[in-house]
């Protein structure tokens, strides 16, 4: 293959680097109006009444809307996937709160005005009579009897309750040669795309047609949802995704403002735009990863794990149509990650609180699973004295174990975990590092080497879901001139998968990549597809592109075989030519074949061949099991990329500052289509992982007020904090995709969590630190050092 596997530069790079992309806020149809959203100032309050009369009279104001109108005229926002098979509860969430606000920032009312400033100014004139209710702010308090309730109809605050027991954990603990127990906690974080959320709707009553531009990851599912919420036929909704300035999962679900904007555009007969402010994004865009893990592990003297008990408590915020709560399920589902562990007891409690709902964020819970499991392995290493990588080698699932069914129902597709860790160690050379560490320590520099594994199951497919499915569609069209159009159902939020599509199509067709144009993000142009999430674009969309392009090539071979008087099986396509493999002189161009297909449909080469060169394929991945009653399991992730990671940090012992000097990763996402773009995705994933491990934290106070609504309070890493990356790949192809791809979009984000804990501990061996709580901000690291020094003296 000429392009697949090559570092082809991103096709849209120059447009974006030149600042010439078109984002939602760049689109200005005539007659444009602007929506501003009034948000609850309270974590939990009953809305007794809303007086909009003053706001309606304010200058420039066209309309003021409240929850009652929404309830009377629209349906609730559908769940992204059915909560029931996951043991979760249902809520009915509308575009505006109906009678109760459940977190600071939940949408209470909206103002449409001629300009954005008038709309925001008029918010101040809406008078809401709130009755403050007791907020639920701590997930463990929320589980106690008598706690106030986020959803009174439920009777408790438990959103998901799921347990499993495999083997006999009690016996394993009774017979153990050693045990450890503890609690680790991952922090509440969010994705912070550079472009916050935003959308624009315009309605033509004569067509009738609702045109909707959204900074979304999945235009087709959004169309389904808008049609359902607004009670209009789906074929009268046209969703367009312009350039998107980062999604990271936050733009996957349908959020309140999307149907609100669409409803108002229809109602007012004028285009309505909503562009989110950064503080709104922090308050309402969706959070992630806030989870406590109570663990106990039983093991033999050599560190072989014989039993594991885990209690997972996830603070998922207020239940909503954002699909973030599923992350707690995926954390549970991914455990116990890489390790055999014959006896397991795992209890999951996903708890509703009066905080911003969780929303899908890169990692989607797999990050937290890797974090806790790797912390447990490090703890066992300390308890047994068995070196930390040896512990992992002792407990790894072996390369012959695949496909490997797991206690949660997951089926790991393929992998070579010891191979990745060995390759990492060969690269990092821990012995050499130890010598450097020793000599630097004598100079007062504390360097530490961290080691971790990271597991990122991909290609999520949830039963009964419009949005989360293990398939996608592509149309490949060779035009009458021989140019190629690839129309995909997967989208790119700036991650570059369009370049991979072009590579796959060019190779399958045998044409030059310069002839290929990729079109995404438009429900009137592209075939049905589910968009971008769960690293699925190349897994599903790339496979569909491969299948559709292969179908078109086969048709071109049929035509060419007649033109060349050869058998189709003798033909090869390369460089825009179709020729007989054994005689390169007997050739036709793809352009010439296209002429036959379109301009000579009744000619001698086209007899009994359908005119035109176009194919649409919907690729469906296997290794997904949705019928427990027939198949005995529920398995939602078909591919299982993973990585072994190491990092070197310098710890400032006096201040607790941690500097990441090196970050090495041996990554396996199967066949890599484009190493350059795969590496670029890893750069982003690792950087977000480092950010969440060292700097980022959403903070709420005891009243449920968010304390981190700006980048002054919520620090994310800059280019200066990004370490030197050393990226190595190991390719264990997926047996379930035609090209062996597994997905790389989320990879990298989970490794830093344990790797940084482990590196800091390694830098200060005399203190025997055991870090359990993220983020590792300087004050937290300093406090841990002080505590250890105090305990030692």
């Amino acid at each position, binding site marked *: 293959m000429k392009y697949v596997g090559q570092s082809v530069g991103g096709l849209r790079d120059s447009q974006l680097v030149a600042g010439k992309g078109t984002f939602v806020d760049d689109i200005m149809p005539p007659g444009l109006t602007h929506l*501003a959203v009034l948000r609850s100032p309270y974590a939990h309050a009953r809305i007794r009444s809303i007086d909009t009369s003053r706001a309606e009279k304010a200058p420039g104001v066209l309309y003021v809307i409240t929850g009652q109108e929404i309830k009377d005229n629209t349906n609730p926002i559908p769940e992204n996937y059915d909560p029931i098979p996951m043991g979760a509860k249902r809520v009915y969430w509308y575009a505006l709160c109906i009678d109760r606000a459940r977190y600071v920032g939940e949408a209470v009312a909206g103002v449409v005005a001629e300009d*954005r400033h*008038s709309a925001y100014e008029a918010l101040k004139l809406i008078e809401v009579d709130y009755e403050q209710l007791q907020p639920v702010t701590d997930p463990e308090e929320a589980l106690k009897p008598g706690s106030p309730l986020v959803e009174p109809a439920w009777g408790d605050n438990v959103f998901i309750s799921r347990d499993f027991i495999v083997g006999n954990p009690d016996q394993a603990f009774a017979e153990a040669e050693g045990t450890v127990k503890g609690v680790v906690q991952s922090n509440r974080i969010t994705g912070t795309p550079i472009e916050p959320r935003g959308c624009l709707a315009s309605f033509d009553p004569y067509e009738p047609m609702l045109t909707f531009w959204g900074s979304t990851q999945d235009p087709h599912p959004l169309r389904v949802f808008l049609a359902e919420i607004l009670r209009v036929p789906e074929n009268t909704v046209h969703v367009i995704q312009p350039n998107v300035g980062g999604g990271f999962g936050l733009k996957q679900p349908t959020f309140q403002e999307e149907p609100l904007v669409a409803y108002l555009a229809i109602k007012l007969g004028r285009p309505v735009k909503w562009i989110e402010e950064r503080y709104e994004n922090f308050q309402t865009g969706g959070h992630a990863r806030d989870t406590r893990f109570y663990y106990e592990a039983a093991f033999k003297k050599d560190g072989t794990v014989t039993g594991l008990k885990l209690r997972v408590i996830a603070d998922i915020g207020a239940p909503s149509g954002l699909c973030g709560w599923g992350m707690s399920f995926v954390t549970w589902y991914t455990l116990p990650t890489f390790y055999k562990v014959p006896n397991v007891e795992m209890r999951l409690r996903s708890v509703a609180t009066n905080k911003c709902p969780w929303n899908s964020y890169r990692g989607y819970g797999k990050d937290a699973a890797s974090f806790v499991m790797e912390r447990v392995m490090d703890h066992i290493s300390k308890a047994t004295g068995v070196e930390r990588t040896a512990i992992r080698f002792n407990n790894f699932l072996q390369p012959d174990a695949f496909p490997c069914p797991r206690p949660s129902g997951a089926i790991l597709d393929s992998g070579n975990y010891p191979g990745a860790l060995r390759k990492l160690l060969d690269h990092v050379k821990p012995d050499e590092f130890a010598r450097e560490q020793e000599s630097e320590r004598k100079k007062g520099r504390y360097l530490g080497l961290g080691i971790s594994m990271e597991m990122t199951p991909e290609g999520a497919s949830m039963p009964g879901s419009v949005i989360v499915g293990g398939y996608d569609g592509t149309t490949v069209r060779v035009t009458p001139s021989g140019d190629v159009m690839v129309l995909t159902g997967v989208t790119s939020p700036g991650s570059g998968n369009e370049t991979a599509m072009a590579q796959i199509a060019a190779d399958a067709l045998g044409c030059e990549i310069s002839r290929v144009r990729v079109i995404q993000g438009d429900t009137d142009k592209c075939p049905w597809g589910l968009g971008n999430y769960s690293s699925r674009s190349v897994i599903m969309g790339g496979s569909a592109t491969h299948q559709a392009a292969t179908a078109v090539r086969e048709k071109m071979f049929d035509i060419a075989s007649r033109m060349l008087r050869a058998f189709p099986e003798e033909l090869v396509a390369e460089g825009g030519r179709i020729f007989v493999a054994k005689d390169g002189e007997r050739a036709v161009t793809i352009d010439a074949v296209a002429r036959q297909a379109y301009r000579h449909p009744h000619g001698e080469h086209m007899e009994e061949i359908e005119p035109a060169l176009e194919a649409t394929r919907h690729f469906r991945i296997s290794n997904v099991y949705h019928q427990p009653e027939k198949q005995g399991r529920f398995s939602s992730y078909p591919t299982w990329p993973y990585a072994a990671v190491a990092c070197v940090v310098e710890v400032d012992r*006096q*201040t607790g500052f941690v500097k990441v000097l090196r970050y090495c990763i041996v990554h396996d996402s199967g066949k890599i289509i484009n190493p350059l773009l795969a590496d670029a995705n890893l750069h982003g994933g690792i950087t977000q992982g480092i950010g969440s491990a060292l700097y980022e934290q959403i903070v709420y106070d005891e009243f449920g007020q968010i304390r981190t609504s700006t980048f002054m309070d919520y620090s994310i890493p*800059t280019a*200066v904090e990004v370490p030197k990356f050393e990226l190595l790949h190991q390719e264990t192809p997926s047996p379930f995709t035609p090209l062996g791809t597994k997905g790389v979009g989320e990879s990298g984000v989970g490794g830093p969590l344990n790797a940084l804990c482990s590196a800091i501990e390694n830098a200060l061996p005399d203190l025997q630190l055991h870090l359990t709580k993220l983020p590792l901000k*300087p*004050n937290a690291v300093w406090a841990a050092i*002080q505590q250890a020094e105090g305990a030692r003296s």
Partner: protein
Amino acid sequence: MISQELEYLAPVQLSEALAALDRYGDKAKLLAGGMSLMPMMNLALVEPEVIISLNHLAGLDQIQEDGAVYRLGAMVRHHQLAESEAIRRHFPLLADAAAGIGDVQVRHRGTLGGSIAHADPAADYLTVMVALGARFKVESAGGKRTIEAGDFFLDIMTTKLEASELLVEVEIPKLPAGARSAYLRLATVEGSFPLANAAAVQGGGSTRIAVGGVTPKPFLVSTTSANSPDGGLPDDVPQAVAAACRDIAGPDADYRRALAQVCVQRVVARLM
């Protein structure tokens, strides 16, 4: 989102600006670089009725040598200080402090006078000004006065400036021949406000060390003692720092006290 209507004045003469300030007083906010004011207005933390922009005033963006002092206009931007050869030669700590503020865009907008008048306790310039013994030239419609940097800062974002007064110029005495100076910031990520910072000036037989970020306003520790034989701090310095940090409260109090000591040690070490 700044949604309220407001009056925007862009005077070109200092006298016009002072007259406007005199007229509107508390209702007005002065706009220098806007790197603090604009975010605060976006978050509706301040909602002024009048904005008086200083960006069109002539002559406030100069860096001038004047005998024994340097005169820096209040509208000198951070990047000017960071890149000025004269500042780098005479007050390298000020150039260092300016170079570490925010990012390139911020440094091209943000101003010396704006940062000082805003008086965020963690701002880089505050400690530098206190260590250098700068004097602030302040004007109002009614007259002029000079305030010592050491007296200027009163509390978090609170200074001796009256509502009618404008900080016009910063006057910094030249350092004695052979003097050394250093600046140090400890920030979580590049460009963020420092958790703590310190500025030190050594010369003429004394060492002046200002510390910021840990207390509501910067504090100054000076000593005439010689350094200890190992090149470390004279004993009276850590004691003075501890005394200045005594009233720090809150969950991170111990950490902030520790950072103050570390900053002082390290900034002094940079003098060597």
